[in-house]
């Protein structure tokens, strides 16, 4: 009847199934700076800015693709978790979804604004790294929390 840009309900489970191991793997990679050499590849790039070198358009770079793979998995899986329909996705759930999304955007940029004021230079790379994913994570946490609160509050009848 209406277009709502949401995935079918079953994708939510699939999303969690990919998101949890990917997130754990991502933290392990970050902490141990794990870059297995068999994942080193020469790849075409459309913008290259070398640390102490030139900046150029188009070229070939050598890159370890493990972090790219994990990043892609986290983004796709968190999109599935965030934007799959609930079992009974009705207009009230949609309203909660919208409110949670607005909340997540404010919260995410609130943290980013504070980070601008208290974190500088190379350290700010960490903020940018996490900020790529936090907007979706904040939304997922907020929305699922609201839904579980709703289910609890509706447990009474009459």
């Amino acid at each position, binding site marked *: 009847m209406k277009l709502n840009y949401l995935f079918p309900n079953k994708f939510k489970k699939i999303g969690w199934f990919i998101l949890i191991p990917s997130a754990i793997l991502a933290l392990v990679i970050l902490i141990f700076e794990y870059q297995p050499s068999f994942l080193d590849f020469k790849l075409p790039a459309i913008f290259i800015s070398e640390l102490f070198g030139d900046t150029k358009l188009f070229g070939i770079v050598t890159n370890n693709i493990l972090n790219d793979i994990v990043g892609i998995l986290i983004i796709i899986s968190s999109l599935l978790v965030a934007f799959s329909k*609930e079992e*009974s996705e*009705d*207009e*009230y*759930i949609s*309203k909660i979804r919208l409110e949670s999304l607005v909340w997540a955007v404010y919260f995410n940029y609130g943290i980013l604004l504070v980070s601008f004021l208290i974190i500088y230079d190379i350290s700010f790379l960490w903020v940018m790294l996490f900020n790529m994913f936090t907007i979706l994570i904040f939304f997922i946490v907020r929305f699922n929390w609201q839904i579980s609160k*709703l*289910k609890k*509050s*509706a447990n009474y*009848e009459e």
Partner: protein
Amino acid sequence: MKNSIKVERAKKNITQAELAKLAKVSRQTINAMELGKYVPSTVLSLRLAQIFEVEISEIFTLEDSDWD
């Protein structure tokens, strides 16, 4: 906005879950409407009126605060 969903439901002698099924929404939505926490869309209001076999204005009443 006030509504008499709970009263109409009692007249029909159906539970929140049964009404939810008839109106094709979740039970939480029925619950939230009865508690005045959620104002339904026109479509859902019309569905409820049809289920209860009454006019829509018999279920929903505007309050002064709805004009603010």
